[in-house]
């Protein structure tokens, strides 16, 4: 699959757009299976690049969400409280939190769509 080029990616399978929307990749939702629970920080919380900011749970397992960049949470996707499966249906179109990015230069260190796709196929041993 080709990953949208309007955003950057992390090796933890999160994505972030230039305007601070954060979600998980299609590869992540496929690996997780049916997502049943998403736990997100409150509006106003600070998130730190590389540190956990919430969890996403499938039937079988709990997975940490890692912040791709640092900033303050300005909005959370409330629909995920009642319809977490939306992430499975459309991982790239479903943002989880919006942050005000403290330092936009942090995004330069993240993976491009092409690099992320390469990373995923290498991880799978193709």
């Amino acid at each position: 699959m080709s990953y949208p080029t309007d955003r950057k990616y992390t090796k933890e399978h999160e994505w972030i757009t230039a305007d601070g929307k954060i979600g998980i990749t299609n590869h992540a939702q496929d690996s997780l299976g049916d997502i049943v629970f998403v736990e997100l920080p409150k509006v106003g919380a600070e998130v730190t690049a590389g540190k956990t900011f919430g969890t996403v749970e499938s039937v079988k397992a709990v997975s940490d969400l890692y912040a791709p960049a640092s900033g303050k949470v300005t909005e959370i996707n409330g629909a995920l409280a009642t319809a977490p499966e939306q992430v499975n249906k459309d991982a790239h179109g479903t943002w989880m939190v919006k942050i005000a990015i403290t330092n936009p230069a942090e995004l330069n260190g993240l993976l491009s769509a092409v690099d992320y796709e390469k990373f995923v196929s290498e991880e799978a041993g193709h």
Partner: protein
Amino acid sequence: MFPRARLSAAPVSPPTIRKTALNAVHRQMGAKMVDFNGWDMPVEYPASIGCGIVNEHMAVRTSVGIFDVSHMGDIRLAGPGALAAVQHISMNDASKLALNQAQYSALLYPQGTFVDDVIVHRLGEDEYLLVINAGTREKDFNWVRENTRQFDCKVEHLSDEFTQIAIQGPKAVNLLQKLTNADLSAVKFYWVTHGSLCGLKNVLMGRTGYTAEDGFEIYIPSNDETSAHVWYAILDAGKEYGVVPCGLGARNTLRLEGKLPLYGHEISDTINVWEAGLDRFCKMEKPEFIGKAELEKAREQGLKRTLIGLEMIDRGIARDGYKILDLGGNEIGYVTSGSPAPFLKKNIALAYVPPQQSEIGNIVQVEIRGQGVKAKVVPTPFYKRPKKS
């Protein structure tokens, strides 16, 4: 605490991992594989073929699903002393078994705790088949052999000889009937029969399972070709019922809804029969069996902890190993198995708590990532299959 999974690709299996005869089939079908007690097993099949844990679970509850359970073990005891041997090591009363009848039981240590749980099948005048857990195959076989030496019977480890496929759900009998000449309508729950199946003769088929649904478990020769042939024949015959292949993920959520114990969780070598609530399978009126004396003592002393069912009231999912707290925040027990329940659409758990906290309706807390999340004690099993009219 239990480590949390990172969102990354499945690790490569170590070279010593064991595989069932259907391993290549599962991989061909695109199943997500997992190391289960040293076995490379499917945890779920892909969404692209209509699977995934939730769909697989629902298929078993509403129609039919099939499972490769060949990793389970099989021990045969045969000979004039076979019944006496089984009576000595098993807590249930095997003398009540008619030919072709089966019963749930357990092998106990002298302390009255569990070596393993087991289904005992009477296959002949003096022939019994014990079907045991995958993770305890060697331990169980050694235990059975060591503790039956004094009886005139042969003890054989047949685990590698069988591919075992479970066909489970309200339509399981319809599906299987298409493939065999045996009259399955005559086979009651927890009875077995033999018949031809997919060109194989004398196949053992038991009306047993681990899903809290009607269904069968069939035992066929474990060579790869035969196993694949039968697996695909079952999927083909089941198309009209919407059959899906099911993995260990759905196997776990199905058995949890039915409050069926899992070794290492609800039962173990440190938990006794009374604590686990398996009294009705333990026949203390038998003159003797391993564990009876200690169980008598334990019964007199009373329960220190008991297995309960929990339903989450506040937002959160209780998971295996999470602590149980009382409303004051004091640790009082732990979760043995916890998960979302796809059919019930609730988050449920089994847990050990002191008897004083075990009343239906009692509110406790589950510690989830450092926070106490409320749950209530509910009757179990959480799910019972509807009676056929």
